[in-house]
């Protein structure tokens, strides 16, 4: 009866497929943001071609450069994944920074204080980091789930608390002798092995990629993943439909925190080999951007992290070859985030304003609709 309503498959062109639209829109957005970046570079009196050339060659061409990019992207995969899975379930865990710090401290402590064979020691350190991040997510999660306290505010508070507390421990309590505020070096049995002198990229990267794969499967192929998505889309509905929203939300928040903690483990066990006070230049916040670039899709997280990592990795080469500073790269990165955040749907691009979309007819992006007000 509804013949008139459904579109006959024959009329479907490839441009009508949603995946194509998404990818095309992302590519166009990337292009636009690079154009905007080019304007900025021009304003700084440099040649955009040269700058982009250096950024690309400095991050992707040649083994040393590529390895550095891998090193830069590793923590971002973890934090990006952590943010992505929480946002997909409607929970704005922006506390990845703090969770990572606590996870790192736990990994660093277990890494040096315990002596065990590698086969046990390394997993134990990872577990410690996971638990550390999880514990740090516990308060925002419990407050959110049981008392309906906005998790964004709590996370905003938990991040500096984590920084100060780990700072206290690594400065006054557990500090290794020496001029740096750090814990003693971890045992070799706890190390994630690196690949080359040129970079601290380590086996943690592989672990991160596997984790992304696992969560991609969890999201689309498991009961939990389905339930997480439903609570993200409409929690009341999920609850009505039989999902134990509180329990699921709690789990997903804690798992998210744990994964952010693993970012800390990657740093400590693979890159620093000891817990360094205040080591993060903001991987937790970059993780939010990465997750958003990836549209909260675990499979896209490594790609987004690659983009961020490549820009960071190319940054050093750019600085070596030109007089430009690291701040340029930061601006370029977030221009990309800003432009990609704009929902340039394929239709919009294709038809410009002649397409009169109904209000709200755009498919809303996944993730929590973080709105002010009723939280």
């Amino acid at each position: 009866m509804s013949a008139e309503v459904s579109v006959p498959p024959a009329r479907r062109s490839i441009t009508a497929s949603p995946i194509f639209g998404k990818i095309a829109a992302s590519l166009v957005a990337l292009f636009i943001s690079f154009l905007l970046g080019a304007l900025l570079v021009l304003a700084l009196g440099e040649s955009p071609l040269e700058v982009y050339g250096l950024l690309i060659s400095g991050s992707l061409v040649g083994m040393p450069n590529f390895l550095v990019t891998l090193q830069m992207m590793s923590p971002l995969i973890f934090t990006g994944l952590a943010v992505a899975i929480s946002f997909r379930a409607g929970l704005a865990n922006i506390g990845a920074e703090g969770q990572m710090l606590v996870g790192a401290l736990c990994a660093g402590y277990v890494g040096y204080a315990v002596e065990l064979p590698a086969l046990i020691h390394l997993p134990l350190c990872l577990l410690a980091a996971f638990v550390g991040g999880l514990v740090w997510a516990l308060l925002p999660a419990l407050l959110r789930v049981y008392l309906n306290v906005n998790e964004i505010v709590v996370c905003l508070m938990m991040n500096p608390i984590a920084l100060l507390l780990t700072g206290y421990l690594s400065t006054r309590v557990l500090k290794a002798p020496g001029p740096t505020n750090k814990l003693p070096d971890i045992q070799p049995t706890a190390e994630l092995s690196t690949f080359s002198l040129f970079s601290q990229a380590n086996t943690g990267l592989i672990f991160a990629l596997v984790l992304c794969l696992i969560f991609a499967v969890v999201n689309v192929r498991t009961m939990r993943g389905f339930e997480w998505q439903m609570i993200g889309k409409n929690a009341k509905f999920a609850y009505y439909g039989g999902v134990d929203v509180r329990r699921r939300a709690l789990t997903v928040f804690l798992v998210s925190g744990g994964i952010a903690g693993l970012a800390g483990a990657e740093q400590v066990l693979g890159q620093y080999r000891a817990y360094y006070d205040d080591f993060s230049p903001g991987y937790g916040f970059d993780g939010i951007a990465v997750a958003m670039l990836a549209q909260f899709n675990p499979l896209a997280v490594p790609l987004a992290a690659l983009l961020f990592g490549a820009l960071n990795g190319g940054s050093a080469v750019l600085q070596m070859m030109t007089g430009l500073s690291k701040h340029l790269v930061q601006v370029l990165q977030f221009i990309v985030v800003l432009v990609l955040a704009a929902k340039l749907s394929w239709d919009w691009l294709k038809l410009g304003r002649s397409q009169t979309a109904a209000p709200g007819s755009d498919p809303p992006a996944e993730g929590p609709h973080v709105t002010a007000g009723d939280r």
Partner: protein
Amino acid sequence: MDLIEIAFSAVRVSTPLVFAAMGGLLSYQAGMLNIALDGFMIIAAFAAIATAHFTGSLELAILVAVLGATMLSALLGVFTLKLNADVFIAGIAIIFMAYGLTALLLKGILGEDGVFMSSAIPRFPTLDLPVIESIPVVGGIVSGHTLLVYIAWLLVPLVAWCLYRTRWGLRVRMVGEAPEAAAAAGVNVDSIKFQTMLLSGVLCGFGGAYLSLAYVSLFANQMTAERGLIAIAAIFFAKGHPGWTALVALLFGLATALSVRLPQVTGAAPQLLQLIPYVVTVAALIIVGFRTARSRSKHGAWKFGWN
């Protein structure tokens, strides 16, 4: 410790928070989680210092600061309202872009890395309020701040008046609570949202100018030190009510002022003392959370205390 001195300092410490929070709560009331306050402030802080350095005029500096922050807020407004970007995502991008951009501009325009100070920048005079000055305790706390401090605190009743007494305020609040209702009643929802976004730019512009011109007299990269985020916490805490928001900001300022003064007295580790404002806030969140949860469950509402 001199309690009056601490209170005086708390007023000063919370002033940038009040500016940012008053701006942020307008867009909050209009239903937007505008996280970019820090970005607006850093741009303004820079613009203020640059202008003051070149022109030597404080008035002009504030004007340019406000303009700069407003332009940035307009950018965020266009992206969220015209291009359908998520305001939270776009806001985060704006913050980090603003940090990077001001660092680039600092080098490009003022030729400095990191910090800029200049003797060409006039200082904000402090004002001794005629009558209030001589009131015992109050005078010591309230009198003797710079003009911008008074502007910030006068903004609180002003913002409250606008929100609760004017036509515009009614529309803002309606747009925030029931955008569909507002749209159906012929209110241009996007325009109202855009206005509050611009206003939060304006107020953060004052906040940034205060930070760089009045609080201190210099610019440093990322000198906002995440005060915008604290302001957001205050707004959420007080559910966007101007008076309560300002009170939370003041509380935070008080805790900070206290934590700054405790090392001299206690000799305790600075990291632990610096925890105080954050821990106080979290504790307050927990207490308030418990109380609302209890009153909620008392009358049994939805079992599910979600949104």
